[in-house]
Structure formats: structure tokens, C-alpha cells
């Protein structure tokens, strides 16, 4: 009985701390994100939600290949 009471208090305290910490961090992360977006938006219009697909000469799929290659080479060395 003692035991579950202690566990319960621990869990409650600790749970509230987690919830508050998480949402506080989320506030910070959100503000940071909003700030970055607002700076980015000033410099250039984000092409979000255009109906016409965009294509470039450097298809970003190559980034996947580069990332994997880099990872594999690092792991070997």
C-alpha cells in the first residue's frame, strides 16, 4: 500500500513536470520555427502549395544517395 502511494506521487509529480517541460520546449520550438519562417518568407516566397510541380536540375533524390554514401563511408572508416 505504501508502495503504490509512493509510486503514484512520483508518477504524478514527474508526469506534470514532463508535461510542463514538454509544452515549454514546444513553445520555444514553435517560436523559433515561426521566427525562421518569417525571416525566410521575407527573403523568398516559399513555393508551398503551388499546383504546378517544380523541377530542378539537381533532383533532391541525389541527397538521399549522398547521405547514405556518406554514412556508409564513415562507418567503414
Amino acid at each position, binding site marked *: *500500500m505504501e508502495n*503504490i*502511494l509512493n*509510486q*503514484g*506521487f512520483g*508518477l*504524478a*509529480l*514527474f*508526469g*506534470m513536470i*514532463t*508535461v*510542463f*517541460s*514538454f*509544452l*515549454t*520546449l*514546444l*513553445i520555444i*520550438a*514553435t*517560436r523559433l*520555427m*515561426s521566427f525562421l*519562417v*518569417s525571416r*525566410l*518568407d521575407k527573403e523568398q516566397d*516559399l513555393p*508551398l*502549395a503551388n499546383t504546378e510541380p517544380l523541377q530542378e536540375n539537381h533532383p533532391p533524390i541525389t541527397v538521399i544517395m549522398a547521405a547514405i554514401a556518406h554514412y556508409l563511408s564513415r562507418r567503414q572508416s
Partner: protein
Amino acid sequence: MNQLWTFWQNTGMYQLSVEQFIMILIGLLLLYLAIIKQFEPLLLIPIGFGGILSNIPGVDIAVGNGVLAQFSAMGLDTGIFPLLVFMGIGAMTDFGPLLANPKTMLLGAAAQFGIFSTLLGAIAMNEIGMFDFTLPQAAAIGIIGGADGPTAIYVSSVLAPELLGAIAVAAYSYMALVPLIQPPIMKALTSQSERKIRMRVMREVPQTEKVLFPLVLLLLVALIVPGAAPLLGMFCFGNLMKECRVVARLSDTAQNALINIATIFLGLSVGSKLVADEFLVGETLGILALGIVAFGIGTMTGVLMAKLMNLFSKNKINPLIGAAGVSAVPMAARVANKVGIESDPDNFLIMHAMGPNVAGVIGSTIAAGVLIQFAAG
């Protein structure tokens, strides 16, 4: 004559037990609440009807190979149905008001006191010798205070499936009772002048932020409370499908056909847990009593947090919107608006209350993640 006797023995009238009769009445009561009182009918109609079906004697519906037992095994025991419902809710949620005023997230955090104090309340009931809840059971009861149906069902299905029926009934009933439970608490804790506080007009949130937010949220969850990742992950997935605007057909289906199908199956599956020997026990009374306390405390701490924040901030928050931090989307936000209008008929709080309202959803899933990670048997 012998066959007539066999027939009589096979009728429901012969086989019906008192317990089943009471459970059928409870099922009818839930239907009454859903249809006439409009208590969360989307869930309570399938739950109530499923509860009736499950207590028909002489036929396997909620047990064995019965259809509701199969639904339950398919999607309730596995968590799939509540997660799909949550995905659909994500696809219906607008984080705009929250992004316009991120500090209101703290209100959604504070209201989760309801969850943890209810957990303690359940343990206190052990102490005074009323019940003998285990820690996972107490945690599952606590989650009623999250005021969020799918989260409550998901957590109970993991931590205490034997209490799922009572917890789901309590969660949805009290969510429907928010307009009765909250206003007296809100008025008791605030002065007339506080209730008249007008909040600043919100900034318009660019679409890019709305697209990025579910990803930021998901990554933060991944780093800090991975136990909440299934719930919040499906929620964020739904929200991303909606906000990114390039998969409108998937978003539409998630918000309509898929969530409706999952709701029907989820409700019937929960109904299949309304069998007498699990529901007609003293613990159910305890759960129903604790549930209303949970809502009350969540409302209280939400309002108090708003008042606390006003001590340190220049941009005053109307403390009524703190009550919306319990979730019960969008009912609690509407209640905050309504109580605000009583003090100042021109002060529309609804949009300001939507921020803490959806923050409350996030808060309860974080709490759910902690409970699943640390209270599991």
C-alpha cells in the same frame, strides 16, 4: 412438447439475468443521452447500442466469434481504431490559434493536473479501503481527466482493458457535461473584471508554419516522450495531410469515410466491453466519481494558470480560456466563449480559447505517453 421446452430454454426471456437486464437498461440510457440530450452521439450511440447487443443472452456477440468480439480484437485490443479516429481528428484540427499565441500552450499543460490528481485520487480510494486499484488502473482512470476520448480509450486498452468500458463511458459522458461542470468553477475562480479582459487580435499564421508545426511537434515527442509517439504521431500525420494541401483526397478521406468507419467500429467495440461482470462493479462507481473530479480539477488548474501567467505578462490573458485547456474540443472552447459573453456581450473568446483547447489535446497525449511508459505493469 419437448421442442417447445427447448425453444423456451433458448429464448432470451429464459436466459436473461438481472445483471444483463440492468446493462441493457444502461445501454438504453446511453442511447437516450446521445439522442435526446445529444451527449457525444457519434460515440455514445455505437457504444450504447453495442452495450445492448453485448448483453443479449444465448448468443455470442461480444464474446467468442461474435461480430463485436471480432471488431474488438481487430481494432480495440490493438489500438488501431482509436489511432485512426485520432488521425482523423488531427486532419480536422487547426493549430492556427495556437501558433498565433504559443504561450497559451501552458494552459493546456496546467489543465493536465486533472489527470494526475485523479490518479492520486484513485490511489487514495485504495488507502481508505474502498477499492484496490493497481497503478496501471489508477493511471487509466486518471486519463479521463484528459477529456479526450480516443486518448482515454487508447490508454485504457494498454493499461487496464478491464476498465475500458467504464472509462470510455465516463470520458464521453463528462465531455458532454462540460457546459454544466465548468461554468460554476470558472466563475468561482475569476472576478468580473478578469472575465471582461479583452485579448489582442491574433496575427494571421502563414501556411508554412502550419505545415511545419506537426513535424516540429512530432520530432519533439520523438526526442522527449517516445511513449506518446503512436498517439501524437497519428494525430500529426492527419494534421500534416490537411495542412500540406497536396493530398486533399487523403485528407478528405481521413476526415470523413475513414474516421466514420473507425468511429462505428470503435464505438461498437467499446460497447462490447459493457458486459455485466466488468461494468456492474463498485469500481465503476469509483471511476465515474473520480472522472467528474478530474474534469473539475483540470478546469480549475487551467484557470489558475492563466491568472498566474497574468502576473508576469503585460498581454493579459482572459482566464476563462484556461478552462479550455482540458480539451473536450471544441465544447470547452465554446463554454469559455459563452461564459465570457455573459460578462461582456461583445467579447468573443472562441478563437483565443481554441489555442489552449488544442494544446490540451497535446498535453493529454504527453501525459498518456508518460503513463504508458512508466505505469505499465
